[in-house]
């Protein structure tokens, strides 16, 4: 996708261990961000994603490694001389300045004249639909409004790279969805590269061009949302992105070929690279249910099928999550609410999935 | 603290400017104050000795600034120059402490030749004996006074002995002051020590016992001249060891019937002498000291403070001290031949540290 010559931001072999910490916060991190790209860093808390963001912003320095912007080494450049802006998780609006003053602040630091910077700040506030709140003080705003002001402050100078540190974390669902749309359209409009840190896979997958999934200071997988979702590179990614069943299997020669066995039952068509114990991941929505009695007819004759009993059902609005007990294991299937009314605890069902959609990991 | 975090909108700059102006005004007099060519004469002196107005007047006439620093006890008089807190030119030291000041290098030998007004000092005052340290005169008198027994004349007849302080009748109504140098000789006199400045171990034991029995008699120790006046005036004490007879006169002025008596055992008497430091060994300082001993200066001093000064009765009268004032001083009495026999002039004690330890233990109540 991005070529080195085009990369706006490059991280090369970043290592960082905090004083007194047993394990590194960042471990050999390398990636590039293309101009105008929406790049997400996804990971659970403590995975080092915020450290990484602060490294790009200039608040942390790597023990080893380089940060390059436009090919120039900015590892030792202080934050205020980097063409990078951040939207902070806590928004970090200056409590003693009005909304307008907050947004005009970066321009003021850049030495812009008063009239000019106020005009620009107003425009920018209009862009995030906060034009009516210029004289308010931050404590007089709601969470969503503060969020937009923080965003306005970060983009008012049109930086080359915008860093967003879990900016939607404190907002409610509806606001979060609104803001997601706004962020995407804003990013298109401004053409700024966004580096977006989040622990919410939904946000990462829905908005990003590419996603880096982080775990324990390393990049577990880097790819497009599709690659990440459908072709997880590791058990961790499979677990963290989307919702998957993780079933212990045994790979053994069966009827002449290497076959996956779940509780002794062969799962035909599941590709296993080598023999021995392994785990198989299959997403909830890839699992289908059928009545126990019906024969495994129609096109799904290739599909793996396991008999089980419904244990419990969660109502999610547009879907149901049906937890099925199959011998020693539980398998969860996500089925559309319409047509799923019949699944009640105690009902025997058949669990089916397409072996092509299963991924096997060796421990 | 969070009570100031409110938005301070209304013309903060104005307030700041105002504060700046105020600060400038404050600093200005210090910068603008008159500068004399000569180094100022710093006095470590006692209250009433050097009225700032007199000092200013003399300073303007002689082209030098005179700065009087008032101290409250011999203790301070010693510690201030010794620690370097104040570097005085002139100190007013009672006779008993002169050797200590000399040993500590705080005063230098005094050049009496530069002070012709020594002739004005009353012949009744046998000062040369006490200002001679190691064969050299180190100071000349400026003032003298007695430390008698003072009492409320409405409450009792005139006592004739220090023993009155130990009288159970006056339990809780006795006052003394916190100065070991001056109080200890009184205790020594009260217990009948032969030489109150050279106590034997037996004398010390007697003094300790006397202090032990004196403690329940005393409710409070005066911290100074004015403090004493307040304590007596408020009725917290009826009799006591008098720090300065000005306490008595000042009480009389306020309509309280207080008087003092010279007990038969002897009354500790001090002579405050002018000593000069190494820094003060200058002609202008000697001129100041000489003028301090002029009849005019002394008369004004006696008149204003009812102290004894150093003048003879006739000189004082000639200088213009009023009869009323003279009556309140010891000057007329001191003409009598036997007057001086009742007085005991302070001298250097045998072991000051031992006395102080006892005094501190007495105050702490652990004697």
């Amino acid at each position: 996708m991005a070529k080195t010559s085009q990369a706006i931001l490059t991280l090369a072999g970043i290592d960082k261990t905090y004083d007194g910490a047993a394990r590194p916060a960042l471990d050999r991190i390398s990636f590039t961000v293309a101009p105008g790209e929406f790049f997400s860093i996804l990971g659970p808390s403590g995975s080092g994603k915020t450290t990484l963001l602060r490294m790009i912003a200039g608040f942390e320095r790597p023990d080893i490694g380089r940060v390059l912007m436009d090919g120039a080494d900015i590892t030792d450049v202080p934050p205020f001389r980097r063409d990078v802006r951040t939207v902070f998780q806590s928004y970090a609006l200056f409590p003693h300045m009005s909304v307008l003053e907050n947004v005009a602040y970066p321009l003021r630091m850049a030495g812009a004249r008063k009239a000019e910077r106020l005009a620009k700040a107003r425009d920018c506030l209009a862009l995030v639909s906060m034009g009516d709140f210029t004289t308010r003080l931050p404590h007089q705003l709601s969470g969503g409004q503060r969020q937009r002001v923080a965003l306005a402050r970060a983009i008012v100078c049109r930086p080359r790279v915008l860093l967003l540190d879990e900016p939607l974390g404190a907002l409610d669902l509806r606001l979060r969805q609104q803001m997601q749309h706004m962020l995407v359209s804003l990013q298109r409009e401004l053409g700024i590269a966004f580096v977006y840190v989040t622990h919410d896979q939904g946000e990462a997958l829905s908005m990003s061009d590419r996603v880096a999934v982080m775990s324990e200071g390393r990049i577990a997988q880097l790819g497009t949302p599709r690659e990440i979702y459908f072709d997880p590179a590791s058990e961790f990614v499979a677990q963290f992105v989307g919702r998957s069943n993780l079933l212990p299997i045994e790979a053994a020669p069966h009827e002449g070929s290497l076959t996956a066995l779940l509780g002794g039952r062969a799962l035909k068509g599941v590709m296993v690279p080598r023999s021995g114990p392994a785990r198989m991941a299959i997403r909830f929505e890839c699992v289908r249910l059928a009545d126990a009695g019906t024969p495994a007819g129609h096109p799904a004759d290739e599909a793996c099928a396991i008999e089980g009993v419904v244990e419990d059902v969660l109502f999610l609005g547009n879907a149901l999550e049906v937890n099925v007990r199959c011998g020693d294991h539980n398998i969860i299937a996500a089925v559309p609410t319409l047509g799923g009314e019949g699944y009640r605890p105690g009902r025997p069902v058949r669990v089916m999935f397409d072996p092509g959609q299963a991924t096997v990991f060796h421990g | 603290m969070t009570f100031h975090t409110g938005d301070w909108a209304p013309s903060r700059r104005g307030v700041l400017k105002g504060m700046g102006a105020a600060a400038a005004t404050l600093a200005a007099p210090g910068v603008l104050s008159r500068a004399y060519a000569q180094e100022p004469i710093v006095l470590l002196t006692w209250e009433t000795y050097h009225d700032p107005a007199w000092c200013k007047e003399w300073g303007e006439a002689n082209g030098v600034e005179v700065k009087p620093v008032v101290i409250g006890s011999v203790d301070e008089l010693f510690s201030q120059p010794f620690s370097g807190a104040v570097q005085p030119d002139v100190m007013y030291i009672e006779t008993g402490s002169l050797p200590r000041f000399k040993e500590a290098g705080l005063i230098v030998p005094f050049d009496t030749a530069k002070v012709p007004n020594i002739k004005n000092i009353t012949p009744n005052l046998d000062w040369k004996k006490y200002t001679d340290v190691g064969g050299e005169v180190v100071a000349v008198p400026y003032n003298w006074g007695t430390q008698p027994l003072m009492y409320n004349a409405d409450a009792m007849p005139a006592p004739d002995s220090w023993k009155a302080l130990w009288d159970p009748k006056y339990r809780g109504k006795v006052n003394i002051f916190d100065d070991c140098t001056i109080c200890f000789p009184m205790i020594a006199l009260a217990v009948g020590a032969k030489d109150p400045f050279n106590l034997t171990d037996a004398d010390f034991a007697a003094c300790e016992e006397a202090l032990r029995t004196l403690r329940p008699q005393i409710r409070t120790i005066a911290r100074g001249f004015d403090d004493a006046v307040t304590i007596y005036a408020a009725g917290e004490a009826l009799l006591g060891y008098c720090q300065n007879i000005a306490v008595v006169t000042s009480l009389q002025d306020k309509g309280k019937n207080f008087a003092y008596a010279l007990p038969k055992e002897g009354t500790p008497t001090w002579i405050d002498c002018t000593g000069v430091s190494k820094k003060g060994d200058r002609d202008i300082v000697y001129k100041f000291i000489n003028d301090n001993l002029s009849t005019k200066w002394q008369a004004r001093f006696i008149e204003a403070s009812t102290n004894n000064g150093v003048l003879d009765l006739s000189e004082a009268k000639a200088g213009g001290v009023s009869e009323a004032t003279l009556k309140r001083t010891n000057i007329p009495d001191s003409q009598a031949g036997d007057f001086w026999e009742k007085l005991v002039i302070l001298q250097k004690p045998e072991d000051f540290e031992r006395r102080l330890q006892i005094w501190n233990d007495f105050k702490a109540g652990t004697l």
Partner: protein
Amino acid sequence: MADLASDMSLAPARPVRFHRISVLGWPVYAWFIALVLVPNLLLIGTSFLRTSNGFIVFDPSFASYLRLWKSASFQFLLVKTLATSFGAAALGCLIAYPMAYYAARVVQKNRSVLVLLVIIPLWISLLMRVFAWRMILGQNGILNSALVGSGLLDQPSEAFLYTGFSVLLTYTYISIPFCFIAIFTALEKIPHALIEASQDSGASAWQTFRHVVWPLSRPSVAIGFSLAFLMTVGDYVTPSMVGGIDGTMIGMVIASQFGIANNWPYGAAIAVCLMLSVGLILALVLWAGQTRGVLTGDEGARPPVASRRLTSGQRLRRAGGRMLFALPYLFLYAPLAIMVLMSFNDSTVQAFPLSGATLRWYAELAGNQPMLEAVRRSLMVGFLVVLVSGVAATGFAFALHYGRVRRARFFEFALAVPVAIPGVVLGIVMVLATQLAQIPSGVGRIVIGQASFVMPVMLMIILARLRRLDGALLEASMDSGANHWQSFVHVLFPSIRGAIIGGALLGFTLSADDVMVTLFLAGTSPTLPIWVWNQMRFGFTPSVNAIFTLVGVGSLLAILVCNRLIFHAKARGREG
């Protein structure tokens, strides 16, 4: 997609950490060495010398400590001093706690005025207030007159003044404002949600207090206690004025060793012992006061808005609460009232009964040149001390908070050592140090001496504020393109301005009222309290009452005006 970046050559490892040692740290070290380390080493060094014939012999010896070990009076006085201060600080906390609770969590309007009202008495010289207590407690004093007049006593009691009781009372009186300030700040910070969470969990009001409010405020109670303890433990002027013969405290013995006895090693040894015992007690108190966990979030108390109608019983209780709240204020202001009264009394003697009304003391003020000079000097000293301390404390707070100082924790405590040194000792210690540095006595010395204990107080206040500040603010500012200095000017300073002003107020208060330290440093240029101290011993004039009455009225007015301005500004801010 393979990241091309990973193919790039890796930069060599950087062994030196980012800005671990910075120039910003040097002033902290310099201050520590000049105002803490050297003076105290001088003191400790002196304590191991001995005297001979009244002069110090430079010959290491334990003689002074041996003498202390054997001295019953030293041990008795030490215990007595510590016990009295301890008791007073404890009483002070007991009285201040309900007051602070009421002010921080019950009162909704004009809270800052209530706080300032507790602080104002501190601006009136301690000597004046103690002096006034004598008039209240004395034989012909108000208390006795009232008791005799009402028939409770047949004749005036001698139990009130010149006893242990009067010392404890005045010490408690001194302690209350310090305890109050510390406790108030803690209580104000407790989020109301925690209290609601506790009530929600089924806790009664008492249980909520016992298990939530008290543990969260306990560390501050310990700090308030320590401050109050320190204020009184080195003070020998107060007990000597109201305590009578039994008012002798260890400070007086120390002072006499450095003065008349001229036994500096012995005095230094006592001072070292006092410092060690005080340190031990404070360590114990702070240890006992600690609470696990850190209160996060900057939200203050949001007391419920009580707009609902109250039952008559509740109203009664509320009125009762207000009365109880007002009582300590009465206690705080009683001596000031006496002072005001005396400033109009037509007599030079400060005792009852009054002789008649006059304004002549005010008229005399204008002509009292030395007093006006002392007032001017006090203001200048206070201003300079606050300026020096404020600049240093702000700089140090940043250096410490942002990791520009090695062993920041150590230095934070080390810089505060002068606060924990009893005044009389600090005064002597600072004389030794300034003497060594050849600084002449006068304003310069006073400023240095006072800054040594004012700076740490301001530092503590500013540091506390910085720690509560959202760390992201600085980053947001730097991220916006502001360098360190711009970030300081536009973001950090405005955020901590309240703390700096509060600290400056407290610093000015400490400076304006200091007697013990200044006494040794003033030389020929007395500040107002020193001048008053001298006046009290000889030549007291009621003009002193007049000037402090003016100071008190002036500060009251200033506070009311400020409050109005702030209130208006807030109202305007809300409209906008």
